[in-house]
């Protein structure tokens, strides 16, 4: 088994410092409604170290997106949530979110959309850094295009780019490639891997694809149906850097996929 490349293991530098990017303790969420409302999340404890790539999988309606929105400071909650040591009571400047539905403004070009987040957050952004992002995401030649002139995959690249321009220490991804076809999805996963290997943000990815979660993550959190609870926390010890072809060929990969499928009750 290829467990020998300790130096590239992503946990080692962060582990050494023991820095917690996300600390969720005893969090629950009730959506108001008749009969005391709907309990969406219950007793969630989750700690994510800095630079860790964590995926959350679970059946539809298990509250994984709710958890992401709580982390993003977009929803109220009961319990304790800290981002980089600071209690969450609104969107944190350390966080960028990419949603499944494109974040792009239809009346802005690719370039202007890439700049938008930085402009709103008053972060200095140079033309050079935008050009760099265009390169990084393979958007060259589409700088002056409007979102409707881009394919769905391209649009999500721009959404991701807008989030990355902010240089967030934590990236929240809410099924960012969920609406794309399998091929485009694979390609964007490769790019996400490549970008993450370089930047090593802390990533919290909500997905319903087990293979995607295994391919990308250091840890996969499995949630149960409503009310959402964490039922398992699986460490993915596949070597990095990963690639779609080689990582998927690794026998350990299928072992993880099978294990998670069983936990999800798919198999």
């Amino acid at each position, binding site marked *: 088994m290829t467990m020998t490349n300790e130096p590239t293991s992503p946990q080692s530098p962060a582990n050494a410092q023991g820095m917690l990017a996300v600390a969720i303790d005893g969090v629950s969420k009730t959506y108001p409604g008749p009969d005391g409302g709907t309990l969406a999340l219950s007793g969630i404890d989750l700690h994510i170290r800095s630079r860790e790539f964590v995926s959350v999988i679970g059946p539809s309606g298990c509250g994984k997106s709710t958890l992401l929105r709580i982390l993003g*400071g977009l929803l109220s909650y009961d319990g304790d949530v800290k981002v980089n040591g600071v209690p969450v009571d609104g969107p944190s400047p350390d966080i960028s979110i990419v949603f499944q539905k494109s974040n792009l403004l239809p009346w802005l070009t690719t370039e202007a959309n890439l700049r938008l987040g930085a402009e709103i957050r008053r972060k200095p952004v140079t033309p050079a850094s935008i050009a760099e992002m265009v390169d990084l995401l393979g958007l060259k030649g589409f700088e002056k295009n409007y979102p409707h002139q881009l394919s769905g995959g391209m649009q999500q690249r721009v959404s991701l780019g807008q989030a990355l321009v902010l240089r967030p220490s934590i990236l929240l991804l809410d099924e960012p490639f969920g609406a794309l076809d399998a091929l485009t999805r694979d390609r964007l996963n490769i790019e996400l891997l490549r970008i993450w290997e370089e930047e090593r943000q802390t990533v919290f990815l909500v997905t319903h694809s087990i293979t995607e979660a295994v391919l990308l993550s250091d840890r996969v959190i499995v949630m149960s149906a409503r009310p959402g609870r964490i039922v398992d926390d699986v460490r993915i010890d596949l070597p990095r850097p990963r690639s779609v072809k080689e990582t998927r060929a690794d026998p350990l990969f299928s072992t993880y996929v099978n294990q998670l499928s069983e936990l999800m009750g798919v198999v």
Partner: protein
Amino acid sequence: MNDVFANERFRSAFDPLVFLVALGVAWEASVHLFDIKPYLFPALSDVFRVMWEHRWQMIIEGGYTLLEVLVGFAFAVVGGVVIALLIFFFPTARRTLYPMITTMQSIPKVALAPVMVVWFGYGLSAKFVMAFLFAVFPIIIATLGGLHGTPSNLVEHFQSLRASRWETIWRLRVPSALPSFMDGCKIAIPLAMIGAVVGEFIGSQNGLGYVILVSSSTAQTDLMFAALITIAVLSMVLFAIMELIGRIAWWRAV
């Protein structure tokens, strides 16, 4: 391929023109064929002749009407947007202003014209008010619809970007509402024309509505039709201009 598109474009300009000319020919022919009295229904050729003879009157009175429409419409745009913003952003305005405006809308505005004459006299200002009253409601409703129609995922996205209230309005809600607002303007501009002409009916010495009123009382039916056609053409031109301006908000359909 290009031929097909060129042909399509040609047809969309050509077909309505042919239809209009055919209608005109049918009008002219039936008047002569059935020997219809000119004071009942003048031949189209007579209408055009009178229009030419009264060309300066048409231009001057048309100018009055146009001024009334444009001023009333401008006030309707400014007032409509301000009212829509108030209703959208202030719950108190939503509870007070909004029901009052919808109630006002149910009053036939034609019935308000005499009141406006009492308040504003026989001059231009009463017509400005009439054009405004007719035009403002669709602008309020369309702008409100646009503001409400801002995609909720984008509102959430702006929230996550820590955008201020003002930035969310200016960078997101206003551009989102723009296509719908432009639709409201397109509905409002012919209504402003109606309002101005109604105002002229009630009390005036100027404008195309006044021309219609006078020619009706002197049985100059051809002049009446000439004024009617001028009003229709003016209204169509204004609508076409609105349509062109509306293209700056092209993202409606994307």
